[in-house]
Every structure is written in C-alpha cells, then in structure tokens.
C-alpha cells in the first residue's frame, strides 16, 4: 500500500486531473466489457500495463506483482464460475459440471478480467486516492463522507505503522516462537491496537482543534492540475487501438 501510494505521488501523470484519469480507466473497462473480444482485452491489458510502467513510472516488477496477486484471485473466481460441484440425486454422489462452453471461453473471460484489473491498477498507480476522492467530492458527493474517507485513509497508514511496530516489538521478544506464544501475542496485539488507535485518534482530533478546526468539513485547498499535451493524444491512441481491434 505504501508503494502504491508512493508511485501515485511520484508519477508523471500526477498532474493530470484525477477525474479525467478516472474517466479514462472507466472507459477502458466499459470498452472491454461491451466489445467483449479477446484481442481487445489483450490490447487493453498491454496498453494499461505499459502505460503504468512507461508513463506512470512504476517498475515492471511491481506492476507484474500487482497483476499476479489479482490474477490469482481472478482465476479462482473464474474457476468458481466455470465449475460447479454439487450433490446429485438421493444416492449422495457428487458431480462436477462445467458451466462454460469451452476453455477458450474461460480464457477470454479471464483475459477480460485481467484487462479491467490493469485499468484499475493504472488509475491507482497514477492517482493518489485522496485526490480522487476530493475530485469526486467536487462533483457533488456528500462532504461528510469525503472528509471521513480522507481522515480514515491517513489513519489506516497510522494503524499499519502501529501494528508493524508492535509486531516487531513482540517478535523481538520471541512473541512468535511457537504456537502458544503466537496466539498469545496475536490476541494481545488486537486488544492493544484497539486501545492505542483509540488514543491516537483522540489526539489527532485534539491536534486538528489546536489548528482551529471546529468540526464540520475540513478546510482544503483546491488543487490545480495541468495536463501534458501528450495525455489526450495517448488516450485517443488507446481508444483507437481498442476500437480498431474490435472490427477485426
């Protein structure tokens, strides 16, 4: 998560308006779903992964790792859809039914899911999530909801850091050597984490108040975005490829 966030902040597409990137990623996903051709999905997958690496600045290894993790999950769900295992009749036997016509169809489904995942990755790798949320807010999402997301996001990192620190502290005292020790450590970690995060949440609130926060919406600057000229060009190129392939 830290790495995802770091790329989102450092990438070259940082200054493209988040909504325009969101629209781009959604359009790709829609195209893949509507056109529903393996060659379109494959092209979209290649484009999105390629853009994330060459333009977004993520390392190929990281993009691949993200895709593998998602791929594992996607493959499992495709298998779940394709294969049905169920009891038959009263004898209590079991049968497996393949619900999808052919392996090719399963392959196409998988490819399409991969392409959609790659489009979401592209968005995540080039757009800090908080900016996306703030941009959606300016479209008219409820302020309270957006503020909550903003603070929660920051809070998650804080929580993860606390968790990591506590876990390391336990481990350094052999907290995870053996089953009983592990169970004991994990249990106390849960309890402590709750107490600690409650306390630090309370202090965060005090710190906001110390700088004049009086409840309600958090005051934020409206960010300015400047898109490089290449952005619309490449985006059009991607769409052209996908539409072109669909006609083959």
């Amino acid at each position, binding site marked *: 998560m830290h790495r995802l966030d770091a790329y989102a902040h450092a990438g070259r597409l940082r200054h493209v308006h988040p909504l325009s990137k969101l629209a781009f990623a959604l359009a790709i996903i829609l195209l893949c779903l509507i056109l529903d051709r393996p060659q379109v999905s494959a092209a979209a997958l290649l484009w999105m992964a390629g853009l994330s690496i060459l333009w977004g600045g993520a390392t190929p290894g990281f993009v691949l790792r993200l895709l593998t993790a998602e791929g594992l999950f996607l493959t499992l769900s495709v298998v779940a859809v394709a294969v049905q295992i169920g009891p038959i009749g009263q004898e209590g036997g079991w049968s497996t039914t393949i619900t999808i016509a052919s392996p090719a169809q399963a392959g196409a489904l998988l490819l399409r899911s991969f392409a959609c995942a790659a489009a979401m990755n592209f968005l995540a790798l080039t757009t800090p999530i908080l900016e996306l949320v703030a941009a959606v807010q300016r479209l008219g999402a409820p302020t309270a909801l957006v503020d909550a997301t*903003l603070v929660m996001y*920051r809070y998650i*990192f*804080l929580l993860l*850091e606390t968790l990591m620190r506590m876990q390391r502290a336990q481990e350094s005292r052999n907290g995870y050597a053996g089953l009983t020790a592990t169970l004991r450590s994990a249990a106390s970690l849960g309890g402590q984490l709750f107490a600690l995060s409650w306390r630090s949440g309370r*202090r965060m609130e005090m710190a*906001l108040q*110390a700088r004049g926060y009086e409840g309600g919406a958090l005051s934020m*600057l409206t960010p300015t975005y400047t898109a490089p000229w290449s952005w619309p060009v490449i985006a059009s190129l991607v769409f052209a490829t996908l539409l072109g392939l669909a006609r083959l």
Partner: protein
Amino acid sequence: MTAPLLAFDALHYRYPGADTPALCGASLEVRAGEKIALMGRNGSGKSTLLLHGNGLLRPQQGVVRWRGAAIGYHREALRTLRSQVGLIFQNPDEQLFAATVLQDLAFGPLNSGASEQEARKRAEWAAARCQIEHLLSQPPHALSGGQKLCAALAGVLAMRPLVLLADEVTSGLDPWMRRNVLSILDDHAAEGGSVVLSTHELDVARCWASKIALMEEGRVVHVAPPQEFFTSSTWRARIGADLWELSDATPTQTASSKT
C-alpha cells in the same frame, strides 16, 4: 518588564478517572521574545500545561490569560486564541492528517479564515522557513521522522502565531536537524514571538533558552535564566544536571573521576 502575552494562573487539572491531579496550581508567564525551556520529570505535567495554553483543556481551577484577559471557551474566543497560540504536538504523526504536506500546511490558515490564495502563500512561506519546500507534494507517511516534525512545525507556523508551544519537538532529532529546528524557533522569538519548549535535553535548556521553568508534581516551582539553574547546586540537582558531568570533561575523564 513588559506585560505577559500568555499567562497560566494557578491552574488545577485532573484527568477524568485519574487519582492524582496532573496540574495543581501551575503558574507561568510568557512574554514577547522569550524562549522558555519547560523542564521537569516525566509526568510532572508539562504536556498538560501546554494543552491548556491553546484552550484544548479547560482548567478545573485557575485561569489562562491572553494579553491580560481570561480566555473564553466558546467558538469565537477559541478561534482567536488558536490563531495566536500555536501548539506543536510531541508526536507529529498525530498532527499531520492531510493528503499532502501542502494541504496540511494550508489547513490552519484556512481555518482562521484566510482565502485559498493567502493560505497557499502562507503554507509556502512556512515550508521555506522549515526547509521542506521539496516535500510539499508528498503524503505525510512518505516522510522521515525528522521531516514529519518539520512539516508539523511548518503547519503551525503557517498560522503566524505569536506564541509557540512546542512539546518535546527536539527529542529524536540528529544534531543538524535539531540545530535547524532550534534556529527556526530562534527566528520566531527574534521577530517578537515567544516560544515555550518542553524538553528533557539539558544542553538545549542551557544553550538555547532564555529562561528555564521547572515543573514538579503539577506545579511550576522555579523560573530563572539558565545560568542560575546551572550554577546553583540545589537547582542543578532538581533539573537532574548533577547526574551527568556537564563540564568539558571527556568521557574517559568523567569515568575515571568517578572511580
């Protein structure tokens, strides 16, 4: 002697559910241009006192005064107070919350009613002063501990407060970073502001502060220039300076003088 900007007058405070009070009759006056090192053992009430200065805690007895008048605890009064008295927390992680450093620095000015343009200008000014201009577009969790502290400090400076209350901000910094932070605080005092820095570092108290205020068990027991604390054997002992050989003796000499 000039009139104090901020005055704590015989404050009493007991945390809900605590057996002993955290403050019992703590008094301290802060004047323009002063650099006060707030010392005292762990749990003596330093952080609790500082929280009162910004109106975050309300004393159960006693008054906090701003320019001679007791502060109010309603919205308007607190808003004015908090734009004049800045508080920097012991742990910067608890202060930084926004998506980027720039957003975080602009938060205080926006709250005190600055326009977006003005807030951005002040944020940039504060970042320049704390030498973190290059970090403005970063998210807080991507910063090192020292950088986080500078960002937290800048977030308060951007509000242009007159009095800065800083809770142990110099602990955990390398000597260069510490020099940096202390010189930012120096600049603030030189421009007519004042600083109260709670610290356990004897050398900071001795070399940086214009006054030391010593807290013991919820009370400020003595306020005096550093040389008085470090020359009187009683006060040396009470700030713990006699535990360490603070002369120019090298470590080996100190060790041999003890045997």
